[in-house]
C-alpha cells in the first residue's frame, strides 16, 4: 500500500512560535463513544476547513447500536476528514491523526492509523475500568503498542471541567464539552481561525446560553492549551485548494438526494410523494423530505416496505412523482410492486441506499451488492432503468436524472446509492436555478381517441392520464395488457409483443443519456478501470496516481447501468485490459461479460468499507 508521505504531517512541523509547516493534505479521524459528540466535532472542523479554502471529503463511521454501553468497542463512533490544498475525491485511505476519546476508540482505530501518525488521547479515560471494557489487559501506553507513534496524552476531561467551572453548567454537561477542548487543540495544530468555529458555534448553540458559553470556553481553552504547553511540536498549514469560484455548501449524499428530488419535482412541475419505511441507511431521506412540505412534498411513513412502494405507485397513478426509498432488504420486499409499476408503466422511483448484505447484513456499512437485484430481482421479464450517483453531491444530479427518465419513458427507475455516499460529504458548488435541466412532463387530457397503452413513437412511453381528467377513465393492473387498449389480454402473441415493447422502451433510454467518457486516454491504452456508483473517487484518484508515474491507465465511470450508455462497447474495445473494481463479488463484471462477451477482471471487496485508493492502485500496477 502506498502512503503519501510527502503530504503527511509526520515530519516535525514548525513549533508554536515559528511558521507552521505547509503540507498539501491531512487525514484526521475523530473517535469516541457514540455520546462523545464526535460527529459534531468532525463537522465543526470540516466547516472550518471549508472556510480556509481546502478541498474536503468526509465520512462518518457509526456503530449499528444506538448507544452501546459507554466505553465498549461496539459503542465507538468515528468521523474521518480529508482536507487538502489539492483536489481530493475520497475521505482518505489512512488517517494520519487520530483523536481518541477513550481506550475503546484507540483500540478500534489504531490499526487504520498511518505508522508513525499522531495520536491525541484523553488520558483521563485510561483507567482500569475503561481499559477492561475496551479489552485491554494492560494500559497500551505502557505496553509498547503505541511505540513509533507520536502520542499526546492529554487529560481532556479534567482540563475541560476546570475550563468551564465558572459557567454554572451541570457537571454532566460540563464533561460533554471535552470534544470542543479536543477540537481547540486541533484548530491550533492546523493553524486555524478560532473565530470561524466560534461563529458556527453561535449559530448552533447560541440560543442555549449556558451550553454555548461552556463550549466556547472549552474550545478556547483547548486552543490556548496547545499554544502554551509546547508539547505539540508540530504545527501545520494546509493551503487553499484551487476550487472553481462560487458559493459552496457541504452536502451529504442523502441530503443531496433530498434536495435533488425536491428540485426535480419542481422542475417537472409535479408534486413529490415519498412513501417510505424507516431503514438504515435510508431513513435520513424520509426525515429530510418531511421538512419540504412548503414545496408541496407529501411524505408518508408507511406500515411496511410494501405499503411504502404501494402508496408511491398509487400517488404516481394520481399524477405525482412517486418516490420510495429503502435499503436492500426493503427492495426485496418491494419487488412484486416494482413489477406492477413496470406492467402499469408508471413513473416510480425506488431509492436503494445499499448496505452490506445478505439479509440484515451490515446495516451501517457500505456495499454495492444490490446491482443484480436492481437488474433482475423481480418475477417475469421485468426490465427497469437503473441509475447510480458517483459521489455525495452527485446524488443531487442523479435524482433529477431519475425523475427525467421515469416521466419521459413512464418506467420505474432504481436509484442505487450506498451507505458511503449517504453519509459521506463533499463541497458542492451551489448551482443557479436557471442552470438546472428542464423536465417536460405531459399528461394526456384529450379523450378523443384516447387509449391508455398507445405509445409515443419516439420513447415508447404510454400516455399518463390521471384521475380527475374527464373522458380518459381507464383501468390499470398487473394482468398483461392488450397493446394500445390496455384491456386484459391473455393472447400469446400479444404477451410476446408487450414483453418486447417494455424491454425496447428501457433500451431507448440510451438515446437520451450522455455517452460514457474516458478519463485519461480516450483513444485507448493498456488498462481501463471501469466503475459504477460510489467507487468513483477511489478509482479516479488511483488512476491519477498511476498516470502521474507514466502508467497508461484510464478510467470510465457508469452512472447509468440500465441501459448502459450507447458507446460503452466501443469504449471497452479500445483497451487491452478491463479492470472492474466493485464493493461486491463481481456484479457489474457479470453484466459486462454476459453482455459483450469480453474478458474483464474484477477487484472485489466486501468489508463494509469503501475502497482505499492504494488498493486499486496496486491492482492497476499488477495489470500494467
Amino acid at each position, binding site marked *: 500500500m502506498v502512503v503519501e508521505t510527502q503530504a503527511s504531517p509526520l515530519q516535525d512541523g514548525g513549533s508554536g512560535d515559528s511558521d507552521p509547516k505547509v503540507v498539501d493534505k491531512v487525514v484526521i479521524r475523530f473517535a469516541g463513544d457514540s455520546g462523545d459528540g464526535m460527529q459534531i466535532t468532525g463537522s465543526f472542523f470540516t466547516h472550518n476547513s471549508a472556510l480556509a479554502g481546502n478541498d474536503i471529503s468526509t465520512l462518518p463511521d457509526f456503530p449499528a447500536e444506538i448507544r452501546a454501553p459507554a466505553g465498549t468497542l461496539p459503542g465507538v463512533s468515528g468521523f474521518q476528514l480529508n482536507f487538502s490544498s489539492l483536489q481530493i475525491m475520497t475521505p482518505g485511505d489512512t488517517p494520519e491523526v487520530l483523536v481518541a476519546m477513550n481506550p475503546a476508540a484507540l483500540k478500534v482505530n489504531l490499526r487504520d492509523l498511518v505508522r508513525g501518525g499522531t495520536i491525541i488521547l484523553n488520558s483521563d479515560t485510561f483507567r482500569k475500568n475503561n481499559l477492561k471494557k475496551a479489552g485491554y489487559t494492560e494500559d497500551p501506553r505502557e505496553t509498547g503498542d503505541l511505540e513509533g507513534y507520536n502520542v499526546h496524552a492529554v487529560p481532556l476531561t479534567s482540563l475541560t471541567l476546570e475550563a468551564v467551572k465558572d459557567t454554572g453548567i451541570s457537571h454532566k454537561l460540563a464533561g460533554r464539552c471535552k470534544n470542543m477542548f479536543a477540537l481547540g487543540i486541533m484548530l491550533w495544530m492546523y493553524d486555524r481561525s478560532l473565530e470561524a468555529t466560534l461563529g*458556527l458555534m453561535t449559530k448552533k448553540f447560541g440560543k442555549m446560553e449556558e451550553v454555548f458559553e461552556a463550549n466556547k470556553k472549552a474550545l478556547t481553552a483547548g486552543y490556548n492549551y496547545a499554544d502554551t504547553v509546547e508539547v505539540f511540536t508540530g504545527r501545520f498549514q494546509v493551503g487553499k485548494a484551487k476550487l472553481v469560484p462560487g458559493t459552496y455548501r457541504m452536502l451529504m449524499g442523502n441530503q443531496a438526494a433530498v434536495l435533488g428530488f425536491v428540485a426535480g419535482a419542481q422542475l417537472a412541475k409535479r408534486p413529490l410523494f415519498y412513501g417510505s419505511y424507516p431503514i438504515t441507511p435510508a431513513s435520513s431521506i424520509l426525515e429530510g423530505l418531511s421538512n419540504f412540505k412548503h414545496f408541496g412534498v407529501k411524505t408518508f411513513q408507511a406500515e411496511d416496505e*410494501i405499503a411504502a412502494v*404501494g402508496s408511491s405507485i398509487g400517488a404516481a397513478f394520481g399524477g405525482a412523482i412517486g418516490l420510495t426509498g429503502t435499503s436492500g432488504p426493503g427492495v426485496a420486499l418491494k419487488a412484486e410492486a416494482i413489477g406492477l409499476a413496470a406492467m402499469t408503466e408508471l413513473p416510480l422511483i425506488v431509492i436503494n441506499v445499499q448496505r452490506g448484505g445478505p439479509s440484515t447484513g451490515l446495516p451501517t456499512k457500505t456495499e454495492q451488492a444490490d446491482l443484480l437485484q436492481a437488474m433482475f430481482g423481480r418475477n417475469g421479464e421485468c426490465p427497469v432503468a437503473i441509475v447510480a450517483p458517483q459521489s455525495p453531491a452527485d446524488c443531487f444530479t442523479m435524482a433529477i436524472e431519475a425523475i427525467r427518465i421515469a416521466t419521459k419513458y413512464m418506467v420505474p427507475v432504481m436509484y442505487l446509492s450506498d451507505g458511503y455516499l449517504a453519509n459521506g460529504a463533499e463541497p458542492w458548488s451551489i448551482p443557479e436555478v436557471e442552470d438546472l435541466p428542464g423536465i417536460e412532463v405531459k399528461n394526456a387530457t384529450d379523450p378523443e381517441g384516447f387509449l391508455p397503452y398507445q405509445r409515443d413513437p419516439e420513447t415508447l412511453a404510454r400516455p399518463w392520464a390521471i384521475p380527475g381528467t374527464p373522458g380518459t377513465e381507464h*383501468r390499470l393492473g398487473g394482468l398483461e395488457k392488450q397493446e394500445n387498449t390496455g384491456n*386484459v389480454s391473455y393472447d400469446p402473441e400479444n404477451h410476446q409483443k408487450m414483453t418486447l415493447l417494455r424491454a425496447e422502451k428501457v433500451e431507448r433510454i440510451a438515446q437520451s443519456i450522455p455517452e460514457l467518457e474516458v478519463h485519461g486516454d480516450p483513444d485507448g491504452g493498456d488498462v481501463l478501470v471501469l466503475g459504477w456508483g460510489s467507487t468513483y473517487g477511489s478509482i479516479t484518484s488511483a488512476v491519477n496516481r498511476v498516470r502521474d508515474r507514466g502508467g497508461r491507465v484510464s478510467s470510465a465511470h457508469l452512472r447509468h447501468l440500465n441501459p448502459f450508455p450507447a458507446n460503452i462497447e466501443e469504449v471497452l474495445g479500445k483497451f487491452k485490459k478491463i479492470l472492474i473494481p466493485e464493493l461486491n463479488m463481481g456484479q457489474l463484471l457479470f453484466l459486462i461479460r454476459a453482455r459483450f462477451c469480453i474478458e474483464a477482471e474484477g477487484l472485489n471487496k466486501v468489508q463494509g468499507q469503501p475502497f482505499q485508493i492504494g488498493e486499486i492502485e496496486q491492482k492497476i500496477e499488477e495489470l500494467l
Partner: protein
Amino acid sequence: MTAKPELSPEKIKEIEEYDRKIFTSDQIVRWCPGCGDYSILAQMQKTMPEICQEQGIPRENVAVVSGIGCSSRFPYYMNTYGFHSIHGRAPTFASGLKISRPELQVWVVTGDGDALSIGGNHLIHALRRNVDLKILLFNNRIYGLTKGQYSPTSEQGKKTKSTPQGSVDYPINPLSLALAAEATFVARTIDADTKHLASILKRAARHKGSAFIEIYQNCNIFNDGAFKSFADKKVRDDRTIVLEHGQPMVFGKEKDKGIRLDGLKPVVVDLANGADESSLLVHDEKTTDPTLANLLARLEEADESTPVPVGVFRALDKPTYDGLLDEQVATAQEQPNAGDMAALLAGGETWTVQ
C-alpha cells in the same frame, strides 16, 4: 385543506344526468354465473349516480382500487378510473392515491383472503390512520380464484382441498378487527339484500374517513350457502337484526324479539310474552366507547338464539389522515420561502470561493 373545485353549470348538469350505464364499462363480466359479486356490482353501478349527485362528484373523480382475488376484478367493470393491484396491497395504493389527491373519492374492493390474510397489515393501518377510503370487503369465507382453499374467515373444521381432514385454524372476525384498528365507520351487509346493500354503500360514501363494510357474499361454486342459515330470505328477519341508530334492538318478522343485556351477556327476549321494550339495548353508532360495537360484532356468538347484526355498527367523526396532512402542507406553503428554489439549494452553511 384543498378546496373542492367549483363545478361548472355544465358539469352539474352532466352529473345530474348520470345513470347506471355511465358507470358500466365495456368489459364482459367474468365471474361465475350465480356469484354474489354480480349483485354487489349492480348495486354499486346503480348507487354511484346517486352518490355523485348527492355529493357533487364528477365520475372522473372516482377511483376504484382492488387487490387480487375474484372480487378484485371489480374495477374492470366500473367505468371509472381503476387500479387492479397486487395481492393484499390495495389499501396501500389507495392510500397513496387519496393522500396525494384528496379531492378524489377512492373505493377499495377486497376479499377475505386479500384483506385479512396476505393484506392484514395494510387493512389495519389504513383504518388506524383514518384515510378517507371506502373499503368493501367481500367475505365469502373461501378462496375462490385459487379454486377452493379455506380462508381466514372459514369456520374451523372446514373441509377444503387444502384441508381434507378439516381446517384446524380458528377464524378471524373482520368487524372485531376493524374496531380494534379504530375504524371510524364499520358496517355489515349481505349481497342478496340489495336494498340494504345500496343504503350502506350510500352511508359509507357520505362518511369522511375510512369506511369498512363487510359484505357477506355467496360463492356458489366453492362455498355455496355459507350464509344461508341467516341470509336466506325465508329466515332473514328472524335470524338477523338491522341496526338503527337511536332505536331499541328489535327484530323478527313480527318485530316480536329484542336484545337485552344480562350482565355483559346479550340475550334475546320475547316481546310478545311481556318483555319490556324499555329494557332493550338501544343502538348508538356514534358513541366513542367501542364496547357496544364490539359486543354487536360478536352478537351471534352469544348463544344460539342471538341474531346476526347488519347495518352500521359505528360511525364517528374524526379528522382524516389525508385532510390533516393536506392542512400541514397548506400551512407550510404559506411560509415566505415556499417553493423558492434558490433558497432550497443555498440552505445550510455556505462559503464563497473567489
